[in-house]
């Protein structure tokens, strides 16, 4: 049976990032979430699998904490998830991530389509899909805003900087989708209940057989300094508005 794989990433929620006065960054309290745009990609995979009369499978590469994501992913309509569970994922760059994902995809038969979001909400590096294409030796289409599937031909609209491009490809292929590909509905209670019964495949680092050493070495992390005035205007409504108009005049921006 045809399989549609969607790769997703369990990321730290940027809303929980704490910035210390010296601009050092504290991520220790940050909760995890499925990367925002990956939720749209998951829904796109569920829909594509239906068109291909096949199965949709989530694939994630993450640390043991990624376990929290599995039920959430399954409640979004995927039929299975596959999890590459290793601490090495915490330090992984684009090359390691794509090799780990490609190794897991190669273990599966009858894969018609691999879907990634264009970028993850932590790194937004946008490397995974093109790298997967190179590793799997499959064609790749990025910046995809719409797809149509007819038999084994996929047509895609690509939203580029100045044009919309329509391209087509014979499956199997890898696509990177923009969030506008489709909405990501919040799973209902029934879907959440059903998720608990769906199959989960787990691989350890040793099952994957790749070198987990990143080529890119992270040498520092600091908060972006927002040098803004942060003036909250006080008073009653008319005073606030008068102060704002006066301030904008003084700034010379009106």
């Amino acid at each position: 049976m045809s399989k549609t794989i969607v790769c997703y990433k369990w990321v730290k929620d940027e809303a929980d990032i704490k910035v210390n006065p010296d601009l050092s960054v504290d991520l220790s309290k940050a909760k995890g979430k499925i990367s925002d745009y990956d939720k749209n990609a998951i829904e796109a995979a569920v829909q594509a699998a239906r068109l291909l009369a096949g199965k949709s499978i989530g694939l994630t590469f993450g640390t043991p904490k990624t376990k929290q994501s599995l039920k959430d992913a399954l409640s979004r309509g995927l039929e299975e998830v596959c999890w590459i569970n290793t601490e090495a994922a915490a330090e992984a760059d684009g090359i390691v991530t794509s090799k780990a994902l490609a190794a897991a995809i190669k273990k599966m038969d009858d894969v018609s389509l691999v879907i990634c979001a264009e970028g993850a909400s932590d790194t937004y590096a946008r490397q995974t899909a093109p790298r997967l294409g190179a590793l799997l030796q499959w064609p790749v289409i990025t910046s995809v805003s719409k797809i149509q599937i007819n038999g084994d031909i996929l047509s895609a609209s690509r939203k580029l900087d100045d044009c919309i491009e329509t391209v087509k490809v014979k499956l199997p292929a890898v696509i990177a989708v923009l969030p506008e590909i489709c909405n990501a509905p919040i799973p209902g209670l029934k879907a959440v209940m059903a998720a608990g019964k769906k199959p989960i495949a787990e691989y350890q680092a040793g099952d994957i057989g790749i070198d987990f050493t990143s080529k890119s070495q992270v040498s520092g992390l600091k908060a972006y300094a927002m040098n803004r005035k942060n003036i909250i205007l006080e008073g009653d409504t008319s005073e606030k508005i008068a102060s704002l108009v006066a301030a904008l005049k003084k700034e010379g921006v009106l």
Partner: protein
Amino acid sequence: MAGIYVYSDQSRITAELISFARQTGAAAFALCFSIEQAKAIKDFGADKVYVLQGGSPLVENYGRAVADFLKSQGADLFLVGATARGRDIASRVAGHSDCGMVSDVSSVSWTEGRVSCERLMYGGAVIQEELLSGFCVVSIPAGKFEAETGESSEIVVVEVEADNRVILVDTAPIVREGADLSAADKVICVGLGIEKEEDLQLAKDLADVLGAEIGCTRGISEERHWLPVEKYIGISGAAIKPQLYISMGVSGQVQHVVGIRESKIIVAVDTNEKAPIFRAADYGIVGDLYEIIPLLTRALKKDL
């Protein structure tokens, strides 16, 4: 030949990348995929301009061909302009070259075969420093370096094989409604704090008084479909740099804030005093936008 190789689908960025490559003291070579492109970039001081010809109209189809060419040349570094196409081909080349890559750097230096760079993470909230050694790929947005002109470069045509599995069917220019947000002098931004589509009129009235363009957050265009997608501002949408940005009902998630950071003055109006937009703002009014915005419009109308 060893040296820094650069590519962008925009000539202006190619010029900037050549300029950076030359500043490092390395030889600078520019790649392109047609004679017309070669002519457009031959006066920016590259040691050579290589035209890779393989008969495909899609630059992305040359990923493997570029990787093979760079390997045969013994390239030290491949710099690519971070446009939609550029990011794509850069990542393909990194994949086929089995090498490291840093995407969308905010700063970069290259000395003795080592790349040191900074890039933004978490929607721009965090700056990460990265080091790479050996051949690698770096994608760089427009405007990071000053372009220069130089003596006319020699143009060398190289026959390569394109990967023709992805077929171009059609290209349609993006029809933008109204002016280009990224060039707007003033922007009024609408967020999910707006309750009904017809309430966009509040933003329109304010925009009319100020001569501003209207933008929005991702939710307004992609979830509610109240404004076209090219109107949304943020990490996957438009990046703006107006003199004045005024938000109404925008909470200020980092994915949005990264798109407005180059604004000169940021004004926020929102009911939630804890909304992150106020930390990103110069001036904030905590209050009901349905009350504040019409009064602000009236005050400005009287004043301007």
